[in-house]
């Protein structure tokens, strides 16, 4: 299958992370957009306003752990409560199931036009393409999603999908697609999008949304947005379909309110998002508005494998984006380089788990392990530890390149033998010194070291190792010590 994440041979784009990242580093537009991107500053201001944010993170992690510990129980409870209130609950084991179920619902309700508010899970299954293939028109209504839909691209960030686009890019796109005079200011562009979207809101037959949380005790979906498009999508069309992962269920409304204390602060630096929509069943007699049908599709697609594994903590994720906002790698290459749905640190953990370790070999390795992500994650996911575990799995399954395995073996063998190690390092110190010449800088390293000297010099060693100098140091009265 060809999709935005695979090529004609079915190879995942994430396989080509390295070259994709290289291209992004040399793409002036992306670089300009990424330079302006700074949600990290907003977060730190918002966090400073609460005096116990670290406690809130701990509480949020505990709530997520509690949900995951008895996931089956909460999911069944959700299904019971939602069904009781007239929602139809569907279970999608695979990505194909998602698309099949949505198309069945749409056909049964004679749907021609679909509007969507943000749903990352639908990106996993390429739902838009599937719906279009089934003859329906699909319109994204989140402004960022709308922009990239016009551009024919995928989101480069989980909450700011068009962050890789500059204002100029957007002005060009709107001019081209709306056939209107080219606008200059952000407010004019936004007004124009609103005008075009409004017609779609009024004429759509089906609204598809994600759901940030599923509330087990009430059978409700819970949607957080800043543009109000989520509310329109879930209430205006005749049919509402919410698609979300199995891990999104939490026991109570109270739990969600605790998670909300960390979500918006971590994501955009807001104390709370502009809109929160809690949807519990279709329109009831006496309700002013609401859809005639409400469906919730609960998706596994690889998630249940993580339960009980050493990767389970990744399922705590509440998709705030803070880890990518704080990631030095993401900030420099943007989200598209990662090649699949979720970029940044959480993407580097989820992608290999969801599409296969061998299909994303670079991702867990493309990190400095600086832990700028781990210390901001509102649910305390130890992202660097999880990436390291994935690296171990690659080694265990023999997925690392031969040259790398050989180099590691050599190093490990020598480092365990001080005599031999000392000989090697003495030689290296001398060779390095002579390579550095009078300036003390090596401009070109051979072999694996070439990656270093491509854009950097290597300060040369001094010529002798500490251990040899120490062994020969003049006695200071106190003896050899």
């Amino acid at each position, binding site marked *: 299958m060809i999709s935005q994440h695979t090529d004609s041979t079915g190879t995942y784009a994430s396989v080509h992370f390295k070259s994709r*990242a290289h291209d992004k580093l040399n793409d002036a537009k992306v670089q300009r957009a990424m330079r302006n991107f700074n949600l990290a500053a907003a977060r730190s201001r918002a966090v400073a306003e609460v005096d116990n944010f670290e406690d809130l993170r701990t509480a949020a992690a505990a709530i997520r752990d509690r949900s995951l510990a008895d996931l089956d129980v909460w999911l069944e409870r959700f299904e019971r409560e939602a069904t009781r209130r007239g929602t139809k609950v569907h279970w999608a084991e695979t990505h194909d199931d998602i698309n099949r179920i949505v198309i069945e619902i749409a056909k049964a309700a004679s749907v021609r036009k679909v509007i969507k508010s943000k749903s990352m899970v639908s990106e996993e299954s390429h739902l838009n393409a599937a719906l279009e293939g089934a003859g329906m028109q699909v319109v994204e209504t989140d402004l960022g999603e709308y922009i990239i839909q016009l551009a024919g691209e995928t989101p480069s960030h989980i909450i700011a999908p068009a962050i890789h686009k500059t204002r100029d890019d957007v002005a060009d796109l709107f001019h081209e697609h709306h056939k209107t005079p080219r606008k200059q200011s952000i407010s004019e562009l936004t007004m124009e999008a609103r005008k075009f979207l409004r017609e779609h809101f009024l004429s759509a037959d089906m609204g598809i949304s994600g759901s940030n949380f599923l509330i087990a005790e009430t059978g409700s979906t819970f949607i957080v947005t800043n543009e109000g498009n989520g509310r329109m999508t879930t209430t205006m069309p005749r049919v509402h379909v919410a698609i979300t992962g199995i891990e999104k269920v939490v026991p109570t409304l109270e739990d969600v309110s605790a998670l909300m204390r960390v979500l918006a602060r971590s994501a955009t630096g807001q104390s709370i998002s502009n809109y929160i929509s809690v949807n519990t069943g279709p329109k009831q007699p006496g309700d002013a508005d609401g859809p005639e049908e409400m469906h919730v599709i609960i998706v596994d697609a690889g998630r249940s494998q993580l339960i009980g594994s050493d990767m389970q903590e990744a399922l705590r994720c509440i998709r705030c984006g803070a880890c990518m906002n704080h990631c030095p790698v993401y900030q420099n290459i943007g989200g598209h380089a990662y090649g699949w749905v979720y970029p940044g640190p959480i993407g580097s953990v989820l992608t290999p788990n969801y599409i296969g370790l061998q299909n994303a070999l670079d991702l867990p390795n493309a990190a*400095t392990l600086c832990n700028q992500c781990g210390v901001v994650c509102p649910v305390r996911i130890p992202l660097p530890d999880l990436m390291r575990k994935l690296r171990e799995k690659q080694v265990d399954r023999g997925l690392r390149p031969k040259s790398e395995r050989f180099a590691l073996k050599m190093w490990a063998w020598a480092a365990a033998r001080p005599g031999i190690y000392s000989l090697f390092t003495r030689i*290296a110190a001398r060779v390095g010194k002579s390579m550095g010449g009078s300036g003390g800088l090596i401009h070109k390293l051979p072999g694996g*070291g070439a990656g270093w000297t*491509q*854009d*950097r010099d290597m300060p040369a060693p001094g010529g002798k190792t500490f251990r040899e100098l120490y062994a020969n140091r003049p006695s200071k009265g106190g003896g050899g010590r």
Partner: protein
Amino acid sequence: MSLERSVERPLRQPRTGRLRSIMLTPYRGTLPEMKVGLFVTCLVDLMRPRIGFAALELLESAGCEVIVPGTQTCCGQPGYNSGDRAAAQALARKVLREFDACDYVVVPSGSCSGMIKAHYPELLADDPADKAALDRLTGKTYELTDFLVNVVKLDKVPGRFSGTVTYHDSCSGLREMGVKRQPRELLAKVPGLQLKEMTTPEYCCGFGGTFSVKFGDISARIAERKCEDIAGTGADAVVLGDLGCMLNIQGRLRRLGNTTTRVLHVAEVLAGVKDD
């Protein structure tokens, strides 16, 4: 842990000056008994021995008896972060044995001390035989500046420096070892030195061990942001506590044509900067 052992032991009355400051620390009775193992780290050993000697000088000037186990090589971090657990475990056990006789292990690196303190417990978790030795090791391992400030409570440093410096917080030192205030406190004691903070001193320099060669272009680009921040301060030198960051920042600065901003390890500055 030495803390418990020490309280039972009556302290001799401290006298004056440097000795006084050391003896006031509630750890061991008399000075010669404070045996400090210096773990120089593989990068310092190979690339910048003078940092090891600076650390040695600082510890000795503080009155510690310093032991430098001659068989030491590497803490195992390159293997650990490359997913080669077995290699990392073998080296961790080696460190465990080499420093078992010391009261403290001091490391002029946040990254290698962090490896020992924050990661050895997980790395050696499957082997209960090592448990007691492991607890001893993690309890007594310190990053150099942390040790100088919080254990020996150094109040005077040998070095002097004329000019402005800016301090880069290395990721592991900061986020695994809690090293933030310590180097700044010590730098404040260096006559002639002025500290000017950069905008984001806690921001990663892009080194990341083998990441720096596997993804050299991304790594260098991250380093570039750091270099811009450093240049923005107009400081004469950037000072830091980890050799990995040091090579990375210096390498990128020089390639960008900056030949004047010095890149110095905090131990060198505290002990007094010497050339090789």
